[in-house]
């Protein structure tokens, strides 16, 4: 079973939920797909001993063959190629590697070279098979790194995908394979507003989902009312407390401090299994 943890709004507690859930269930695989800012390993502390580069293919112009006809730049939907008098400029960070320029080139002047955009790291800790991805600083496209991470999914295990914040492409690329999605929010107007956006996304993708309210008690009841009205199950509430905030700030998982969290996250997992079987 694949469970993704997403949120809309950033900083609501996705990583807290993903790591504690992984630590509470057996035979888990945890994949941190927030490749822009991965934080799960701050809490897991796995020794990362395997590394793998993620590369994308970008065009390289054979200047012997090129006659500067401009067909490639005309075709490119991303403005990644520009033909200026007797040169072709390639803007690798804009390229989506669609292969269109090669198809339209009448001179066969386009070759491909691999360009690193990020990397994947792997480690095992407390029986958890852990992966995360890192987008290189200055790179635009997180998607190729997320796609490379998803190839690591082991279907024999309980897989937890920690998603990036937001509602656009990197989130969709992460959650679209999941059997269930946990949306983590906080009981504030910003939390509620962004939860509604995230709900639209998971409904659009037809993924069963439930809500976890983190820092319960800091704001108002509106998230509860919304979930009731929309018949969305609230599968857990994590109360606001100075202690949990302090543990988080030090990079300590809730379950390693207090065994009750182990049980509570275990119950959440059981509930999700039931919901998915329905």
């Amino acid at each position, binding site marked *: 079973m694949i469970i993704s943890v997403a*949120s*809309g*709004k*950033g*900083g*609501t507690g996705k*990583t807290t939920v993903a790591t504690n859930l992984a630590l509470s269930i057996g035979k888990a695989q945890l994949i941190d797909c*927030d490749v*822009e*800012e991965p*934080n799960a390993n*701050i809490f897991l502390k796995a020794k990362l001993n395997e590394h793998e580069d993620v590369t994308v293919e970008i065009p390289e112009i054979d200047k012997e063959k090129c006659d500067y006809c401009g067909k490639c730049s005309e*075709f490119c*939907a*991303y403005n990644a190629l520009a033909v200026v008098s007797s040169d072709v400029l390639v803007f690798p960070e804009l390229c*989506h*590697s*669609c*292969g*269109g320029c090669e*198809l*339209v080139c009448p001179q066969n002047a386009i070759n491909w070279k691999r360009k690193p955009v990020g990397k994947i790291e792997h480690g095992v800790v407390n029986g958890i098979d852990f992966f995360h991805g890192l*987008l290189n*600083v*200055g*790179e*635009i*496209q*997180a998607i190729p790194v997320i796609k490379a991470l998803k190839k690591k999914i082991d279907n024999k295990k309980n897989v937890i995908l920690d998603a*990036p*914040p*937001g*509602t*656009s*492409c*990197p989130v*969709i690329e992460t959650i*679209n394979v999941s059997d269930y999605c946990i949306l983590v929010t*906080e009981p*504030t*107007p*910003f939390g509620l*507003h*962004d939860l509604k*956006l995230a709900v*639209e*996304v998971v409904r*659009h*993708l037809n993924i069963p989902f439930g809500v976890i309210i983190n820092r319960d008690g*800091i*704001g*108002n009841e509106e998230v509860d009312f919304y979930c009731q009205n929309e018949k969305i199950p609230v599968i857990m509430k994590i109360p606001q407390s*100075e202690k949990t*905030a*302090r543990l*988080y*700030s*030090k*990079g300590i998982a809730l379950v390693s401090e207090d065994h009750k969290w182990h049980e509570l996250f275990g119950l959440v997992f059981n509930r999700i299994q039931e919901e998915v079987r329905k």
Partner: protein
Amino acid sequence: MKQLTIISGKGGTGKTSIAAAFASLAKNAVFADCDVDAADLHLILKPEIKKTMGFHGLKIASIDKDMCTKCKKCYDHCKFNAIDEDINLIKESCEGCGVCEYVCPVDAIAMVERDSGFAYISDTRFGPMAHAMLKTAEEASGKLVTVVRENAKDIAKDKKKNQIIIDGPPGIGCPVISSISGVDLVLIVTEPTLSAIHDLERILGVAHHFNVPAVVCVNKYDINKDNTKKIENYCKNHNIDVVGKLPYDPIVTESMIHEKSVIEFSDGELSNNIIRMWGKVKEVLSR
């Protein structure tokens, strides 16, 4: 005209609350919400929309099933797996490259505009605002950020405003880079947690990569003073000004519930701190 973008790397550190507070302090500014994925600034600024513009992101393939001969050339050539074996388009995966249209021997595929969202120009009680809404499961948020920034610049020229205050998205990728390219200063809002410190280092790398000067604000600095010290030392070693240290205060959530900025809602210690920080930011901006 000076442009300031508020970013954070890690989400939920307080970007929007600080942007809203700055909005109530700025005298002659335009506000832009560039977190088009999960925009929240409008919940406080309550913009009155004056102009709505349709936003078309990348194009999308449209397959004419009657003309299709199922030769599968499009399926074979699509690098995004956006066409399945029965030649159905998987909308969320299409990146609009146009390869399928090009390879189709019977012209059964056309690239069409997609309605990806809206860009707005609005008035608020503090001044004009540019913002946007990306439709569910749409791509090209970086492109929409660029539209919002262009709109903000146009308003600033038109209304002779000398500042643009931009509320940025979390992360370090495409929409963030679109939000900070060419601005005069970024204010990075961080918090004293190991996660935020890790993310701070990465976002500072991005600012550096694009040659944008950065200053730092440590929000909720008192939840872990040892970590705050670490951030201050790190910034000192890298020659980065820490322009503000804000205490944790439930007033932030309370003012949000009342749809007010912290400055409007309270004149306590936190507000005084933010006022001082705004003074420093203005000073750095004017250098």
